[in-house]
């Protein structure tokens, strides 16, 4: 066992983990944050996407011990003081989900995308979420949801 100290959605936690424990299992089973999903476990689907020090990664393809001393953000951390994050609001308003399985990963990836490129065009959005698979929506509404969030975030809160 190895001791790791990780800041999770702003709060620091220390745990003993096996060196081989994948980050996604740590998040779901040790922290009980089950918003982060496992879709494939083979690094393809992106359902397990979380942010490590602000960068989106596939948490099924990292060991927990690799994030010792770092900060991770999961979908549970998007809400601040009861208010939905603009990305969450976008997915709600534009019907960016059907079954919802891909959604947490999609949203975490969108958060990084919008940080790097606050006003992405459609092509940039599609390329930006190319590591996230959705079996339901056909992506059209996901693109709209991200555009909604982009507008809201750059217009200081309104979507006009």
């Amino acid at each position, binding site marked *: 066992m190895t001791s790791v100290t990780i800041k999770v959605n702003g709060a620091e936690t220390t745990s003993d983990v096996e*060196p081989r424990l*994948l980050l996604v299992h740590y998040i779901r089973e040790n922290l009980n944050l089950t918003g982060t999903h496992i879709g494939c*476990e*083979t*690094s*393809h689907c*992106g359902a397990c*996407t979380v942010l490590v020090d602000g*960068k*989106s*990664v*596939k948490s099924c*393809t*990292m*060991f927990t*011990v*690799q994030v010792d001393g770092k900060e991770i953000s999961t979908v549970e951390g998007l809400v601040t003081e009861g208010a939905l994050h603009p990305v969450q609001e976008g997915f709600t308003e534009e019907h960016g989900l059907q079954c919802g399985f891909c959604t947490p990963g999609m949203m975490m*990836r969108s958060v990084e*995308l919008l940080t790097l490129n606050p006003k992405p065009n459609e092509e940039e959005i599609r*390329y*930006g979420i*190319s*590591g996230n698979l959705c079996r339901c929506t056909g992506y059209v509404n996901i693109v709209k949801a991200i555009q909604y969030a982009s507008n809201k975030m750059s217009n200081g809160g309104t979507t006009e």
Partner: protein
Amino acid sequence: MLQTHGEDAKILAGGQSLIPMMKLRLAAPKYLVDINGISELEYIREEDGFLRIGTLTREVAVEESELIKSKYGIIAETAKTIADPQIRNLATVGGNLAHGDPGNDHPATMIALKAQVVIAGPEGDRSVDINDFFEGFFETSLKPNEILKELKIPIPSGKSAGSYIKIKRKIGDFAAAGVAVQLSLDDSGTCRSIGIGLTNVDSVPLRAKRSEDLLLGKQITDELIKEASQLASDDSNPTEDLRGSEEYKKSILRVITGRALKSAVSRANGDM
């Protein structure tokens, strides 16, 4: 660590190849040596006549580097075709070469750029020509106690440009076939240097030597491009898989080699 544990230990860089292989039990190292803390290995700079890239440099840094985009466009073009954004946030250029997978994309580009790799071991550093680095299927000239440290790419002279073209079924897929071309033309349009590397059409990343020899020292005409593309296809040795038959792969390789040559020539001439 590597010295003590020899074959039992493996270096962990981005982990985007090694962790998937461990899940499939294709790799089962007893010890992992995580080199992610060595930030001295993350850099992109020109020095002493070479573009130098530290092996721990992430794909995302390569994609976004102004130096690379302005003078070595082919490297950014290659990085963009690799996997997807999340994987590129972690995956390293060094890991892409050290893995020794003929399906990885940087090897062909490094062949086209005539790169050297710098390897550090207990007795100090050694430089290896990229063409001698890949020894077999998932085999490189790295010894268990060595680490890949740097890629050295000669700064190109003359009107120089490159092109990387990869055919894949979808984003995140490895190449059905890929080709990297980097060339320099002098003022008269004569080809003064050329490198052509091929992805996933043999058990190792392949250099299209006969195609290079055909074009070197000549004005590159459509006729010569056709001939050079045919030679690259003839010299390839792809195997049939879900991405297509041997014939299909040889045929697309011929077509994309032609396209990459044309694109490199027009980029070198400044036509984009």
